[in-house]
């Protein structure tokens, strides 16, 4: 099989992994070295496919042959997809050739599990080792690791990679038992805990000044959760994500709406992808990480799934009208972050500017604050919302999107998955 055909199969096999971040790595570059590569900036999306996803890394599987039988996965052993396998040398050459043409930020290497977790990890590590040690490659490397691999191999992967990840896949053990019988939530979290320990050891600030520096290790770990493959509610998904952020210090949890795959499994009939649900989960994720929301504020017992028609911050504000309106000239940062339509950066701008001037609506307009959205929730020097505004039970109806004429299309507000884009999309 020629290289082009292998690339076709092994990129196709890798495209269901949503992660594409190339930011957050330690600062390094190729000056004074023998090769190419740099990391440590904001991360760059070198292209975009018509699915709206950024193309930042050469994202491929080493092989799509797999012992596991995860029913949402095109590469499961029951699938009759055509199988292929790169040699480590082929991946190294592709990475360097693509990198030198500025097509990519680096390599995201994953693999189907062949023979055993350790054997597979050794093959993946061999590619990273060749890139780093033989070709002096200083670009971005993201390695997918296997929870059941030995800790020594995970540590070696972390030594060459800028980021490592283990996919949690589903938020509950019941879901895994049914759809990914070889995977196990407790083992995955135990491996994440080990990785977190290594990251803290290398990059944490607790080390004594005279203690020897621990060996190099990736600066972060991330994971992916499938949405819509099992019947987990958004509340269950977000609680799992919250736990991964707090207990394992993940950089990112990616949410991937289960989308049709060729050759679907009889255990998991395919349905059209719930793209807007995925989008709402990303918005909720941002509320957890950047807006000071607690996970239990985002959904309610009565409605454990996010409102598909309203963004989760607006939905929260409508449930908690009593704390509004907030005075943009007086309210605390915490309260301003809760105002629908005010993003993190505009809150900072408001806090900076109001030390010197009384803010009026024209000032907010200049910051491109969405006025229709914020007006019922704020007081400004020249604005007090009509009282009935916030008492009005039909307020929700005011914010609902107009009836759609054409096909569902949520493109405009879809979060972009590179970290640079994420900052932008975080402005709810």
């Amino acid at each position, binding site marked *: 099989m020629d290289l082009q055909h292998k*690339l076709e199969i092994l990129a196709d096999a890798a495209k269901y992994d949503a992660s594409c971040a190339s930011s957050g790595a330690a600062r390094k570059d190729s000056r004074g*070295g023998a090769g190419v590569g740099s990391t440590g900036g904001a991360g760059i999306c070198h292209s975009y496919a018509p*699915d709206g996803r950024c193309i930042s890394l050469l994202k491929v599987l080493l092989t799509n042959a797999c*012992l596991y039988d995860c029913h949402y996965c095109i590469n499961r052993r029951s699938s009759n997809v055509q199988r292929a396998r790169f040699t480590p040398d082929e991946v190294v050459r592709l990475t360097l050739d*693509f990198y030198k*043409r500025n097509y990519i930020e680096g390599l995201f290497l994953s693999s189907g599990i062949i023979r*055993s977790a350790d054997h597979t990890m050794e093959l993946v590590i061999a590619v990273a080792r060749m890139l780093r040690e033989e070709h002096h490659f200083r670009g971005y490397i993201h390695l997918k690791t296997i929870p059941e691999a030995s800790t020594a191999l995970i540590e070696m992967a972390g030594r060459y990679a800028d980021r490592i990840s283990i996919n949690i896949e589903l938020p509950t053990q019941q879901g895994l038992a049914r759809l990914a019988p070889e995977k196990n939530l407790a083992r995955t979290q135990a491996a994440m805990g080990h990785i977190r320990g290594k990251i803290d050891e290398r990059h944490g600030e607790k080390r004594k000044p005279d203690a020897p520096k621990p060996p190099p290790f990736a600066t972060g770990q991330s994971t992916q959760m499938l949405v819509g493959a099992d019947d987990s509610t958004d509340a269950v998904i977000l609680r799992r994500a919250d736990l991964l952020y707090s207990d394992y210090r993940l950089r990112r949890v990616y949410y991937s709406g289960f989308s049709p795959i060729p050759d679907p*499994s009889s255990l998991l009939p395919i349905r059209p992808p719930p793209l807007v649900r995925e989008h709402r989960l990303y918005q909720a994720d941002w509320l957890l990480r950047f807006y000071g929301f607690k996970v239990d504020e985002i959904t309610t017992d009565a409605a454990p799934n996010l409102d598909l028609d309203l963004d989760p911050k607006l939905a929260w504000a409508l449930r908690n009208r009593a704390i509004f309106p907030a005075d943009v000239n007086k309210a605390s940062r915490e309260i301003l972050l809760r105002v629908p339509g005010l993003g993190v950066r505009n809150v900072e701008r408001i806090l900076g500017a109001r030390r*010197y*001037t009384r803010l009026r609506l024209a000032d907010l307009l200049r910051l491109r604050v969405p006025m229709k959205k914020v007006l019922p929730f704020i007081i400004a020097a020249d604005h007090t919302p009509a009282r009935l505004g916030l008492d009005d039970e039909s307020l929700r109806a005011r914010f609902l999107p107009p009836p759609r004429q054409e096909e569902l299309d949520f493109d405009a507000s879809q979060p972009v998955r590179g970290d640079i884009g994420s900052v932008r999309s975080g402005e709810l």
Partner: protein
Amino acid sequence: MRTVVIQPVFEEWRKSARELLALRVPPDEVLWSDDAQEPGLFAPTDDASPRAAVPKVPPAFLDLARSVAAHCDARRWGVLYRVLWRLTHGGESHLLAVATDVDVRQLQQWCKAIGRDIHKMHAFVRFRLVGRDEATGREQFVAWFEPGHRIVHLAAGFFEKRFAGMDWSVLTPHECAHWDGNVLHFTPGVPRSAAPDDDALDDLWRTYYRSIFNPARLKVRAMQSEMPKKYWKNLPEAPLIAELIAESSGRVEKMLRTGLRPPKPAPNNAYLDSLRDLDAPGQPPPDEPPQTP
């Protein structure tokens, strides 16, 4: 009213602005105009302008000004001088903190446009292999790019750091940057025809682009907001976009029509057996997310 004609580069504006400040010329008495001639290749070095007489400005203003200077809006010099005046003579030394101020907001928007232009240049430049230096053995690459503003000198440092191990040139209509392993240097702009059109690797790259695309999640507007059409003509992958969009619904239809495949029994494999042993009863219960009470 006086008219100040400068070559449109930051250093020229700074020199003139210092002189005007020293003479206490208020901003509404100055008309700024770009010298019609192309700027010199090398930024003019600081001369003996009355530096000591210039009041201090926040370093953030200089960063902002350096970036805004690359913008092609003709009003930029005037707004920069007005903000400089307000910072130094207007009693508004805190001005940059007032993001809602009309002038500050304008500068920040220009600065953001420059940042985006630089970012897109870093993203969408495509190097083409043109040969190998016989003496050094280093590979030589050339790229063509059309930035929206005069940003080549601001964007080039990134390429030096990233591609130190190869020789490269980035050619643009206004300014070109070159790296030979030792020195980063700049030459005047060249026409498109000076750059090679393609590279032997482009086919493999297009194969990758085609294969990584998921036809089940078509989001054309999301793609275009990040990769506007004006960049497409210099991207080797862009000619695929139309056909990928056109084919996508048929590909999804086909997936939806596919028969469901039953699971295969596990093969005889020692590793899979060991996983089953791990899952056997007696293992600690998996950690479940807290359920809503």
